[in-house]
């Protein structure tokens, strides 16, 4: 095979590749040296990936790990203090977090399982995080990790200057969102699917308990109307059928004044309050 590529063509491609290499190496070295903290994450998917990456690359698992959906994801780790990790995934479910814990070399002492939403274990997501080439690159090249994307560094800096954004809902908007949730929560999920999903969850829980992990179930507070809806009752009943309180540890509801943004997701102030109560309950002795 011979090529008659002209000099100008060669130079465009060669020079472009040189610029690329210089930027790529320079960026990775800079991030490796600076190790920036408190970075911004652009969207849910990226936040989920970054949450998983942080956990996977931790040498030793935290003492207490929370797993769940976007409801538990509202419980910022900073609300708890040291020793807590939140491995909850927006759009996901506790089973996904449990699977990542199971694959880690070390296990936490306590796992808190949020029971509000039942969804399938996201195997595609988990496999993508453990894909060997991607894992290798992420381990040695910071730029391969979601949190170190250039835009996240830039916006992390901007956010620290502008502060976080208000998320207290407008009354009319909230009424609309709640009505949407009511409509969703009035329908029961397919019962065969529900039993299958909790079966998967049971295998994950049992495998961790066999390794000495204390697994505790809890229910995130949601709007009272939704709490008493067919879907919420049905899912909790199914959870308690598979993990009966007589044999598994459950935290009773923690009464308080909670505000949600849309009927199910706590606003930050309420999430902080609930996290404080949850921590106190764990510290107060046997369940």
């Amino acid at each position, binding site marked *: 095979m011979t090529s008659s590529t002209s000099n100008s063509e060669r130079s465009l491609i060669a020079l472009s590749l040189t610029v690329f290499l210089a930027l*790529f190496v320079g960026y990775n070295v800079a991030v490796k040296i600076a190790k920036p903290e408190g970075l911004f994450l652009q969207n849910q*998917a990226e936040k989920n990936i970054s949450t998983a990456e942080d956990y996977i690359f931790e040498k030793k698992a935290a003492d207490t790990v929370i797993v769940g959906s976007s409801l538990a994801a509202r419980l910022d780790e900073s609300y708890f203090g040291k020793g807590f990790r939140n491995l909850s995934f927006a759009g996901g479910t506790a089973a996904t977090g449990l699977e990542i814990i199971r694959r880690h070399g070390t296990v936490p002492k306590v796992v808190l399982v949020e029971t509000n939403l039942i969804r399938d274990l996201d195997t595609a997501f988990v496999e993508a995080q453990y894909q060997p080439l991607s894992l290798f690159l992420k381990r040695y090249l910071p730029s391969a990790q979601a949190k170190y994307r250039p835009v996240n560094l830039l916006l992390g800096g901007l956010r620290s200057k502008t502060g976080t954004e208000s998320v207290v809902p407008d009354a009319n*908007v909230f009424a609309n969102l709640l009505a949407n949730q009511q409509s969703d929560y009035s329908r029961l999920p397919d019962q065969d699917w529900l039993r299958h999903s909790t079966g998967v969850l049971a295998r994950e829980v049992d495998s961790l308990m066999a390794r000495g992990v204390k697994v505790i179930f809890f229910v995130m507070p949601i709007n009272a109307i939704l709490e008493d809806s067919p879907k919420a009752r049905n899912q909790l009943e199914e959870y308690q059928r598979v993990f009966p309180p007589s044999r598994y540890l459950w935290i009773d509801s923690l009464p308080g004044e909670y505000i949600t943004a849309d009927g199910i997701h706590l606003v930050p102030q309420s999430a902080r309050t609930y996290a404080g109560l949850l921590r106190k309950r764990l510290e107060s002795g046997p369940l």
Partner: protein
Amino acid sequence: MLFTSLAFLMLLGATFALYYLPFLARFQVFILIVASFVFYASAKPWLLAILVLSCAVNAVSSFGIFRSESLAAQRGWAVLGVSVNLGLLLFFKYSRLLFESVGGDLRQVHGIGGFLLTIPLPIGISFFTFQGISLVVDTFRWKKKGEPIPFFARTFWHHFYNTTFFKAFFPQLIAGPIVKAHQFLPQIARKYFSQLRWDTAFRFLVTGYFLKMVIADNLKDQTFWIAQPYFLSLSTLNLAALLFGYSMQIFADFAGYSLIALGLAELFGYRLPQNFRFPYISRSFSEFWTRWHISLSTWLREYLYIPLGGNRSGAGRTYFNLFTVMFLGGLWHGAAWSYAVWGTVHGVILAAERLVHSDKREAASHWAEHALRIAFVFSLVTMAWLLFKLPHFGDVVGYLKAMAHNARLPISKVMLILIALYSIPVLLYHAHHLYASNNPNRGFLKWHFFFYGAMLFLIAVSSGGSGDFIYFQF
């Protein structure tokens, strides 16, 4: 198989290596057909049967035209070919829509009827069907002229082989550009590694992957909020920004795909037609349609608008033709009436524009007027994209109502910043073209390597979550 997946890159590497091996030179077309079949069948192998059936239909009908001596027989074959093509498209893409539109309830249909109505849409069928029609019609037109057809093989099997390659060639199989038979078939010949246009392929591929992976895939995670019920809680400014972002995203997604397709074809020595020419600098809607999805608009003009009479049969007929073409062009995009409405909206605007400007010649005007006209066309085009993003009319109305009522809601600055950041490259891409076309002796061409290097860097470190190309669904 996505152009952005590792599996695709491996397939591409293997195909490229085999393709240029001197002792396999005789099998170049065969290698590309096999690679195209692997590419197409990777997710759902049964789809291959539909692609092969479509190739066979077009090979038989076009060869029938080629071998027929009488005009009546040629016309018969042409009608048969076009009808079967449209029938396949109608069946696989529109049967469900038509069934539901006449009040049918899919839950009540069981057995074979239910099975047929719920067959998933074969990916790329809209594109390869239109290519098939172009083969039949092109053959008929050449034959009618009584001239030898320069792109036709002498034997049926050779013709079938070429037709299969023409329709299945993987760079353009899933989402175009819609290549016409007379553009592609004459290019089939042995290709030499030494004649490869590396520079062109490199430019197409880097720009295409950058637009898709860095711009469209990141904007996708913002425009995700253009959905019920999420948009209800967003401020007017955020809703407007999201629409703007979607306009940027759909361009970056589709233009990016098209550029990748052009670059990939270049790697195998084939040239595909340009599909986008900086559409967001258009000063009129008629200009917009000469810059957006050019291969579709030229296809519609050559194979529908002109055969319908074009603008040669009086004003009334011209407007009717315009509406028909835009209505069908809209519906071509998806099996939902919102796409037809989207096409019709464009048809109405094109008709209005024609009415206003019918007797006026384009006069040179001030740059500010140009800018205003560009902004006006862009705004209307962007508003119309809402019908693409939200296929339910109720949601479209809900979105517009939210835009009208949510002015006092808190503004998410982060969303505005992200949309702006990812839109800037698209704006610069258009601005650079404007600048370059007004300054032919531009001096910064020599710095192009810096932009390509930077794009490669951003592809490596700032790609968004991989997502299907928007036009795959069509």
